[in-house]
Each structure stands twice: as structure tokens, then as C-alpha cells.
């Protein structure tokens, strides 16, 4: 697998994605209120907060599944009032889900191959024949997918329908599917939820490897504070849809507002 192309204007440490004054409402429910933060190229950025703080909504805004009522999203230097899923995907934002959202009827291989869909160019005519250029393209992408399979150590389950896999492996396949898009920004929604210690350690290793080997910028939501503080370069904390803290892990850990949010305050 190749590292994503470095854009001319964006070098390591520059802002890859900036969210400015974003507000999202569902009717009268305010999911996100006036939140601003940025994600710098090459970093691991954690988004934490108690349940219902708006973390997943934030990811949905970033990759265009929700359209915020106010605010701007700047990705790779281009400012938009809202993302669209297709634009986000083709611009290099990939995503995994809190509740595994794999294509259950398809094999591991097909799931990860599906991640290459946007990169495949051959049209309907060649697809009907599945020979010549279409097959050549298929093989070329299969090679990339096999590298991802090697990287994630899931060779043995290549041809197994993912619905039959245990949860931990499904999470890994989902990461593989996101990696197949060769994203510049990878959004991980609770990649370690429901895993045992060993699986968590594996997943941490993969996340760090993705970040260092491919230079992929990662934004992750996670509830395991040990993991968050170890992995991430910077942490943003949300509570009730508002940002209450933003900074390096040590700063955030000692922030009184964050402690209050997690432990509660005496009334």
C-alpha cells in the first residue's frame, strides 16, 4: 500500500481539516453547538466526551452524512458549509463505525475490495465482459487489497463471509475496508469498543502503524482513557454538544471542566 499523496500545499503539521463554529440541530435537539477545532496533518486526534456528547455526530458532519445548520468545514484548504458523502470519500476521508457496519453477506475480500470502488475506473461495458482491462484492473486492486490483508494479519479469513466472523475480527476487517480507500483522514468511531485487552492492544498497534507507515491522519473517538491518552497527539473534549477542552493529553487530563464532565460535580 502506498502512502497517500502529499498535497503540494499541505505539509506535515499543517491543518488538514478545520471545523469552525459548527452547530447541528435535529428539530429542537441541539446535537452540536458552536464547536471549532482542527486536525493537523499526520496527527492522531482523539475526540472524547461522555455519552451523548455529540462525538459521532461530529464525525457524521465531517464526512457529510449530517449537514450542519451553521459553521464551516475546511478540508485540504477548501472551505465548505457542509460536506457531501461522495465528496468526502473521493477527497480522502474514510470512516469506521461504532456498531460494525460491514457488508455482512460479502466475504472479507469483497468487503475490502468494495473499499476500492472509487478507485476503479472501468465502465459498464468492460464490467460485463470481466476480461481484458476490467480483469487487469481487478487484479491490480486485488494486489493492494492483499497488502492490506497482510498488514492486518487476516489472511486466514479472506474468503469467509464477514457475518460469520467474531466481533474483534469484524472490527479489523472494517479498518481494512477503510484503509483500502487510501484515506488522508481516517475517522475511527470507537475502534476498541467491546474488545478484550489483547484485541485492544492489537488494534492500537494497527492504528499506530497506519499513522506512522502510511502517514494517515487519524481522528478517533474512544472511551478507554488509557488508550486515548497513550495514542493521541491532541485531544478535544465535548460535553452536551459543546467543546469544553482541547489540547495535549496531559493538559486535558488535568482540566477541571473535563474532570467535572466525567466524574460529575457535587450539587
Amino acid at each position, binding site marked *: 500500500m502506498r502512502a497517500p499523496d502529499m498535497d503540494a500545499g499541505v505539509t506535515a503539521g499543517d491543518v488538514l481539516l478545520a471545523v469552525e463554529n459548527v452547530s447541528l440541530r435535529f428539530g429542537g435537539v441541539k446535537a452540536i453547538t458552536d464547536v471549532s477545532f482542527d486536525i493537523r496533518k499526520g496527527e492522531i486526534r482523539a475526540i472524547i466526551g461522555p455519552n451523548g456528547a455529540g462525538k459521532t455526530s461530529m464525525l457524521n458532519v465531517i*464526512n*457529510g*452524512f449530517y449537514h450542519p445548520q451553521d459553521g464551516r468545514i475546511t478540508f485540504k484548504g477548501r472551505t465548505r458549509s457542509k460536506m457531501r*458523502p*461522495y465528496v*468526502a*470519500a*473521493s477527497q480522502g476521508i*474514510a*470512516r469506521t*463505525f461504532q456498531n460494525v*457496519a*460491514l*457488508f*455482512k*453477506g*460479502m466475504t472479507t475480500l*469483497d468487503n475490502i*475490495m*468494495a*473499499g476500492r*470502488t*472509487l478507485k*476503479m475506473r*472501468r465502465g*459498464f461495458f468492460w*464490467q*460485463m*465482459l*470481466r476480461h481484458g482491462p*476490467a*480483469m487487469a484492473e*481487478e*487484479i491490480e486492486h*486485488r*494486489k493492494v487489497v*492483499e497488502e492490506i490483508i497482510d498488514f492486518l494479519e487476516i489472511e486466514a479469513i479472506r474468503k469467509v463471509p464477514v457475518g460469520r466472523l467474531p466481533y474483534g475480527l469484524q472490527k479489523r476487517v472494517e479498518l481494512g*475496508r477503510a484503509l483500502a*480507500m487510501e484515506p488522508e483522514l481516517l475517522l475511527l468511531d470507537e475502534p476498541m469498543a467491546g474488545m478484550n485487552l489483547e484485541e485492544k492492544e492489537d488494534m492500537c498497534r494497527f492504528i499506530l502503524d497506519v499513522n506512522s507507515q502510511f502517514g494517515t491522519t487519524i481522528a478517533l473517538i474512544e472511551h478507554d482513557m488509557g488508550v486515548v491518552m497513550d495514542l493521541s497527539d491532541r485531544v478535544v473534549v465535548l460535553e452536551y454538544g459543546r467543546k469544553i477542552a482541547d489540547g495535549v493529553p496531559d493538559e486535558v487530563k488535568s482540566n477541571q471542566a473535563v474532570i467535572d464532565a466525567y466524574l460529575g460535580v457535587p450539587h
Partner: protein
Amino acid sequence: MFYREAGQFKTNYAADMAVFPILQDKIGIALILTLALVVIPLAGNAFFLSVVMIPFLIFALASIGLNLLTGYTGLLSLGTAGFMGVGAFACYKLTTIFPGVNIIVWILTSGLFAAAVGVFFGLPSLRIKGFYLAVATLAAQFFLQWCFIRIPWLYNYNVSGAIEVPTRTLFGIAVTGPNASPEMRYYVVLGVVILLTWVASNLVHGRIGRSWMAVRDMDIAAELMGIKLLPTKLLAFAVSSFYCGVAGALMVFLWYGGAEPEVFSINQSFLILFMVIIGGLGSLTGSFFGAALIYILPIVLRGAPSLVGLDIGAATVEHLTFMIVGALIIFFLIVEPHGLARLWQTGKQKLRVWPFPY
């Protein structure tokens, strides 16, 4: 014992991605093709060809069409017969307006008309799913059938209100109309079905098929991966309706030899939907199994008493046939809710490791 893949190593991705990667499967499909292309036309009589094989192949083709939509893309449709009717009427209009053009060209072209109609009625699929989409396609079914009855232009103002298939030839031999031999009709149907099954297999094993299945299994994830939902669903409607349209044209031109609008009623839609469900959603092989179970089995059952020398009244045989077929459908669905295709897969898996359990 005979179905072993041990020792069959693949040294490149092309071999691994083949539709039939195992040698025994390749031999199997070659045997089936030989049987269909050589043995059946030589050994079968006119009755077998025109009453069993031709309808079976046409139903299988329609089932493949619906399976692409319902089984692979997860869009439930009850408009199958309507789309088949569009194919049949389009073919009839085309061949009466341009009699000089080869009928096979028109049969395949009529699929395009069905595809266009299918895309139109597929538009609601972006917003509605499941049973609600089924109701929307039901509207297509009723509207199209209404058109077939109420627009006399479609059946060239025939007083009978039905299509009367004219004689058309291929290399000087009649393939449609009253003079066409069963062998000739069988070969044309078989040729079209083999070609379109091959194309369907290519589509579902490639990028397009993966997009369809992605939309079926988890549309949100598919959308966030950059698969545009509406074009993907409409493509499924187009391809599916194309297959149904061709099947409808074949049905009228090479099987019935003439048809009233009643042929394309809701019952036909349900029949094909049942074939798809019993055969196996999301399986091309299953479409053939489903068509065989629902269409051929009753014929076999009807003929069975006289073959073994039992003297049972025709009406009783008919009742028994309904009961047995109904019971078998329930039996198969209890044994394997995912259809005959899954049963076949399980059987093959068992055979691979036989005599060991795993």
C-alpha cells in the same frame, strides 16, 4: 471423495478470482453445457423442449433479472411481470414496424425499453425501502398492465386485444411463429440465456456487483465509501428490467407464440419472486434451481401417476400437485431459509471434507 480441491494451487490472482476456481466445478459446468447444447436437443422430443425446457430457461432468465434487483441490491420488486410485458410489447412493436431486422436483435433491444421503464419506476427507491418499495413497484405492475390493455396501439389494434407473433427467420429457418421448430426455438432461448447468465455473472463478480451488495447490506457505509446510492440502485433497476424484458419477449415470441395482457399479471410477478426466494436470494445458480422447482416439478408430478401406471383422475392429480409442491416449498424453506442455492453450497462443502464432518 471426488470433490476435492487439494493440490489445486492458484499461482495468480486471475485464477483465484475465476467464477469457477475449482477444477471439478469447471468439469461440472462443461457437462451441464454439453447436456443443454447437445444431449437435450438430440434426446428430447418436441413436448419436452417446448413445454419443459423453453419455459424453464425463460423463467430462469426472469428470475436472474429479479435476483439482480432483489437478491443482490436488496430492492424488493413486484413489478417483474410488468417489465416483462414491456419487453414483449416493445419487441412486438419493433418487429412489426421493422420486419426486416433480425428478431434476435429486437428481442435484445426490447430489453432496453424495459430497462428505461424500470429506471423510471426505480426512482422512488432512493427514499423508500423494503415493503414500501414493493408497494411502489406494485403500482408499476398495475399501471403497465393497464397500458397493455387500454392502449390498442401496443397490440396493433388487433381485435383480439392480444399479441399475435408473426413468423421471423434466422438464417432462413423460422424461429418464431407457428412454423418454428421446437429445436430452433430452444437453441435461440438457450443462446440468449447462456449469454445473459454469463454477463450477469461477470457483473456480480466485479465492481458493480460489489456496489450492489454493499448497498444491500449497509447502505450508509456504502454511501460514506463514495458509492452513490441513486445511480447504483437505478443501474440495478435498469439491468434487472433489461433481463425481465428480454425474458418477456422470449416468453411471448418463442414460447407462447401469442399473448394477452393477462399473461403479465401480478400472479406472474409473484411466481418469479417465489422462484427467486426459494432458489436463493443473491445467487445466479439459485435462480435456475428456483425456476426448476416451481415450474418443472409440477409437470413431473402431473406426469408421474400415469408413468408408474396409477389411474388417478386428472383433477385429483392437479390437487395433489398443488399440495406436494406447496409442502416441498415449506420443507425447503424450513431446512434452509436461504434457499436451494445455500443448500447446494452446504452440500458441496460437506462433500469437500467427506467422510469427515469438518
